[in-house]
């Protein structure tokens, strides 16, 4: 029997596009429409067949895997819980409960994504808005150090550049778009104006823009590889627009000055509000990485890099962040929820995960699960599991089951591990 499910949410990136059409045949996804190339595999490459968990390379019953996971976590002196961003917020709440119970360090993929953005927000504040405001009001868009044409493929179409909105009746024609990057990306080709910055010079360029917005004179002929006249034109255009929005990405958070880059941008945005309406939005990568920040903040007070080792939450990026504790060999067990740090961490940190007992919950095998002591093949939120994810503008979106669930959810397995630990 064939059924068509409309308004399905794709969980791949922070856009959380919720207009996907999925055709289901015999409880399998037969066809997907409107989904982008990055998100298509969420639906078409996921095999929902129930599989048994794996302990030390052999398939076992669920109870045995839960028991082994509990044993590893109870015996560890300093366990790490990491990932979270491709799971639902219901499961994220469970891992915070687990971290509190066992005195673990808990960190999310934010620390290798927009962690520096959180640091900047805590330092200088963040003028934010919703994607609905962008769609309906923004006549000036600046994409700085991000490349939605590769990472958020429908962002231009659904939220920022192209849609017609209440005060943007002509869509693309009513918006001016600038891309600032160290290389001419695919997104730069979509822009009205591309500004190429010397690698590592974003901070200087942002500081110069702050000065120019305030009407100060700049003697230098160029800053960060950008001619003064070009920066002056940008400053004047920012002050003269009706509603401007910066979108910022890893170009600022992963290069030299990291959170200082972002603080300078957030300060510039705040100062622009003396002249016009301006906001900034981090381009969140994973489907629910914004939810990981939300859940950890409302439960512990801090967005990432939190330790419960002393019985209360302590926050210290650089000290309790996953790359640091792994590279310094400060953790002796790990629970990895819906992420693949062996693939995405610097090799020194990733290799340490292969040397300590690791527990992995994920819909599919990955480089981290290959060497894990325990692997739980769980359901995929938004496909065969219901839950909640937060879009990049921190709007929560409810996910439905598109096909009948045959696998347990992350939330269910985490609940069983917690109960087993309480019995130990």
């Amino acid at each position, binding site marked *: 029997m064939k059924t068509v499910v409309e308004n399905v949410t794709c969980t791949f990136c922070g856009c959380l596009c919720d207009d996907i059409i999925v055709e289901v045949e015999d409880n399998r996804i037969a066809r997907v429409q409107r989904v982008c190339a*990055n998100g298509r595999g969420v639906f078409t490459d996921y095999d929902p067949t129930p599989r048994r968990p794996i302990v030390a390379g052999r398939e076992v019953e669920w109870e045995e895997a839960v028991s082994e996971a509990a044993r590893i976590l109870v015996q560890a002196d300093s366990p790490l819980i990491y990932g979270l961003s491709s799971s639902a917020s219901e499961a994220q709440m469970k891992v915070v409960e687990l971290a509190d119970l066992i005195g673990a360090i808990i960190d999310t993929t934010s620390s290798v994504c927009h962690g520096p953005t959180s640091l900047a927000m805590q330092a200088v504040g963040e003028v934010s808005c919703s994607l609905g405001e962008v769609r309906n009001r923004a006549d000036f868009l600046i994409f700085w150090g991000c490349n939605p044409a590769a990472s958020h*493929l429908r962002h231009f179409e659904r939220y920022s550049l192209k849609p017609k909105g209440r005060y943007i009746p002509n869509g693309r024609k009513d918006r001016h778009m600038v891309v600032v990057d160290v290389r001419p990306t695919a997104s730069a080709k979509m822009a009205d104006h591309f500004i190429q910055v010397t690698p590592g010079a974003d901070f200087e360029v942002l500081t110069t823009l702050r000065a120019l917005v305030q009407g100060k004179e700049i003697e230098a002929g160029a800053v960060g590889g950008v001619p003064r006249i070009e920066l002056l034109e940008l400053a004047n255009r920012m002050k003269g627009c009706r509603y401007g929005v910066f979108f910022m990405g*890893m170009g600022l958070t992963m290069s030299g000055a990291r959170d200082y880059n972002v603080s300078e941008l957030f300060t510039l945005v705040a100062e622009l509000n003396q002249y016009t309406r301006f906001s900034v939005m981090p381009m969140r990568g994973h489907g629910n990485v914004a939810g990981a920040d939300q859940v950890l903040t409302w439960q512990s007070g801090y967005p990432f890099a939190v330790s419960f080792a002393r019985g209360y939450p302590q926050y210290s990026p650089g000290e309790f962040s996953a790359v640091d504790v792994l590279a310094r060999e400060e953790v002796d067990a790990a629970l990895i929820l819906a992420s693949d740090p062996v693939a995405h*961490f*610097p090799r020194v940190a990733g290799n340490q995960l292969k040397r300590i007992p690791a527990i992995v919950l994920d819909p599919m095998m990955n480089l981290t699960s290959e060497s894990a002591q325990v692997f739980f093949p769980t359901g995929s939120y938004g496909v065969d599991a219901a839950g909640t994810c937060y879009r990049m503008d921190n709007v929560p979106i409810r996910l439905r089951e598109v096909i009948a669930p045959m696998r347990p959810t992350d939330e269910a397995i985490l609940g069983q591990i917690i109960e087993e630990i309480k019995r130990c």
Partner: protein
Amino acid sequence: MQWRNSLGENFILITGRTVKQAAGLHKGKDSDAYRRATALVEMNAADMARLGIGEGQMVRLRSATGQVEMPAHTGTVPSKMVFVPMGPVANSLIGPETEGTGMPSFKGLTVEIEPI
């Protein structure tokens, strides 16, 4: 930054998402699609010509942390900059230092390149 045995010219390494990398990861991290999508370096055409690197030729990249070999392809990067898609190959070159933030230097790292 100095190394004892200099291999070639210094370049700035940028790593990041590509559409093929994202599509490949859904196929599985052990799939050919993922390996092909993440094991390549994009270079400026003039830099490749100057170093005598042909399209698709294997090159060796070396950073202060490690070294790795991969095919080079012409890309839209400025001269003296190279781009490698995010993933395990790129991460062989990235050091674990985070400057007290939790974030390693995935962008802006100095690497040396030589044709093999």
